[in-house]
């Protein structure tokens, strides 16, 4: 800390940097450095240096790792990635690299990341080092290894460690997104990695599939399947087991997991459209709502004690919150005439949902569970639907027709900055981001 403050006093550059990026790296117990980021503070200013490598193969792998790490860190929206200054590695000899920390602070970098790629027979070894630029302290030194097929996961393993180091939180690396695509002419379920990589088709029912959502432990996929001729809740065991179908009669609508053992969905077999909790084997655990109106789209607080859902009990669809223990229901939304598609943040008391506005736009909003903090995240972009949180609560995946066809986009949970996730044929809808396992 003393060193840091001395830097502020004696270095003009460091002073500027502190004004521009009010982020303080402080030592926590156990030699861990966690960035305490003030409300509204900027991103972490980071120099991700080109990886060092000798040899043709090593250089090729290093370039691949460079790109994957850069894109991965950029995806998180947590960093301002600064190009390394030309003189960042001065006085380097054959065996050691000396990092020019004054050059790093002069370009406003808070954190410097560098690494070396070597090979031992067919194993690729990636040695990564993370330094605090102002204090020139080594924050992390870690080795990752694997084969050429593991390059992407090695780069993302480092990205995940870096985010954990600097924010104290887990990140999106390794998470998945399930969604609907009609590219075969039928609405089937697909999955991809958090950044749109590795799209894989999960169903081939040649019918209609809707609202896929992974269980928190990633073992089950719940969705609505029309193969039987009617919309039925299906719970597929992804570890190779059977698929449980909650047939009953009438319809099933929009499942949402309470925990890895219980999924909630609307079932209308008793004449009313009530939300039930269902076990992973398809048996009904219990009925949650009790109202003759439409009750759909259950989504749960992180501890599973409260459920937000859509109900037309007051006329037009609005969001309500029910306490599961007491059964008490409170109306959450009073703004907007048609509020649907709630999704409760996996890490906070925020709920994201959509409002169908008078002009025909559908926009995404967040609101706190106590009804405060209503925030509009999209505007002037057509129909924006089916928002779903990233596992760290930092981002939201959604579908939008802003460029014509419905495609998947990812934006910051604070709004704006919507970037298209993937470009495949057809329309992609109803994305759902997996949770941490």
């Amino acid at each position, binding site marked *: 800390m003393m060193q840091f403050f001395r830097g502020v006093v004696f270095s003009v550059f460091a002073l500027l940097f502190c004004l521009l990026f009010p982020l303080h790296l402080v030592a926590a117990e156990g030699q861990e450095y966690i960035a305490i980021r003030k409300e509204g503070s900027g991103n972490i200013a980071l120099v991700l240096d080109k990886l060092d490598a000798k040899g043709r193969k090593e250089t090729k792998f290093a370039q691949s790792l460079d790109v994957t790490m850069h*894109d991965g860190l*950029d*995806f998180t929206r947590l960093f301002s990635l600064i190009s390394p200054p030309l003189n960042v590695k001065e006085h380097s000899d054959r065996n050691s690299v000396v990092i020019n920390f004054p050059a790093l602070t002069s370009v406003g970098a808070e954190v410097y990341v560098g690494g070396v790629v070597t090979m031992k027979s067919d194993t690729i070894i990636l040695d990564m080092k993370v330094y605090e630029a102002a204090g020139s302290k080594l924050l992390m030194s870690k080795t990752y290894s694997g084969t050429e097929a593991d390059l992407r996961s090695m780069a993302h393993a480092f990205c995940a460690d870096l985010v954990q180091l600097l924010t104290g939180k887990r990140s999106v690396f390794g998470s998945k997104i399930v969604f609907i695509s009609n590219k075969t002419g039928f609405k089937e379920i697909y999955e991809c990695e958090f*950044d*749109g990589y590795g*799209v894989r088709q999960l169903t081939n029912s040649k019918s*209609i599939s*809707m609202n896929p959502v992974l269980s928190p432990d990633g073992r089950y996929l719940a969705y*609505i399947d*029309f193969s039987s*001729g*009617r*919309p039925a809740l299906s719970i597929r065991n992804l570890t190779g087991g059977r698929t449980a179908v909650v047939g009953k009669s*009438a*319809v099933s*609508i*929009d499942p949402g997991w309470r925990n890895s053992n219980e999924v909630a969905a*609307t079932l*209308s077999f008793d004449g009313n*459209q009530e939300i039930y909790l269902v076990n992973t084997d398809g048996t009904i655990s219990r009925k949650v709502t009790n109202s003759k109106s*439409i009750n*759909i*789209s259950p989504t749960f607080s992180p501890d599973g004690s409260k459920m937000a859902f*859509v109900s037309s009990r*007051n006329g*037009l669809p609005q969001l309500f919150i029910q306490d599961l223990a007491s059964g008490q229901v409170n109306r959450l939304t009073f*703004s*907007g*005439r*048609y509020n*649907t*598609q709630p999704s409760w943040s996996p890490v906070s008391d925020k709920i994201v949902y*959509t*409002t*169908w*506005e*008078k*002009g*025909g736009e559908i*926009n995404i909003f967040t609101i706190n569970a106590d009804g405060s903090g*209503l925030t*509009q995240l999209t*505007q*002037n*972009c057509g129909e924006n*639907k089916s928002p779903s949180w990233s596992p760290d609560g930092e981002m939201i995946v959604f579908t939008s027709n*802003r460029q014509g066809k419905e495609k998947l*986009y990812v934006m910051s949970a604070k*709004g*704006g*900055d*919507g*970037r*298209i*996730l*993937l*470009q*495949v044929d057809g329309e992609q*809808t*109803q994305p759902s981001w997996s949770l941490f396992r």
Partner: protein
Amino acid sequence: MKKNIIIVLALMVTAGCSSKSAVTPDEGTSSQPSLSSSSSRPELPASPSGYGFDQWQTGPLGDVFYDYDSATLSTEAQEQLTQNGGWLSSHAAKAALIEGHCDARGTSEYNLALGDRRAASAKEYLVRFGVSPSRIETVSFGEERPFAQGQSEEAWAKNRRAHFVVK
């Protein structure tokens, strides 16, 4: 499959969306939205020779149409259901599947629920008319199987329907 997947992490799509000033959400209201009031509902004759009986219907039972965001049976809808009930009464060996459908506006989960209510309201009318509930099944397709394409009130009105399939 992976070849035609282009991962775009560029900023190119961020422009053009949020350039205008913030839109204040509507104050809480329970009134009908302006974009689809019931007054704009087109004429939908329920007679066997009219619309809803020959162009879209696939059997002897005519379709029933609904207002926006409603599962309430209009006079025309009740007349059509009375005709359908008469046919079912005189064909006691036949059963019917009622499919509830919605127009594509709004959100698909809510529309799946709304279609379910439309089918249920048609069934309830027929049961009160005297048809045994065991002869009538209901299902909803929400907005998934529109009968008319297009983004106009004319197309939307054709899609807000209970469709009858004789079994």
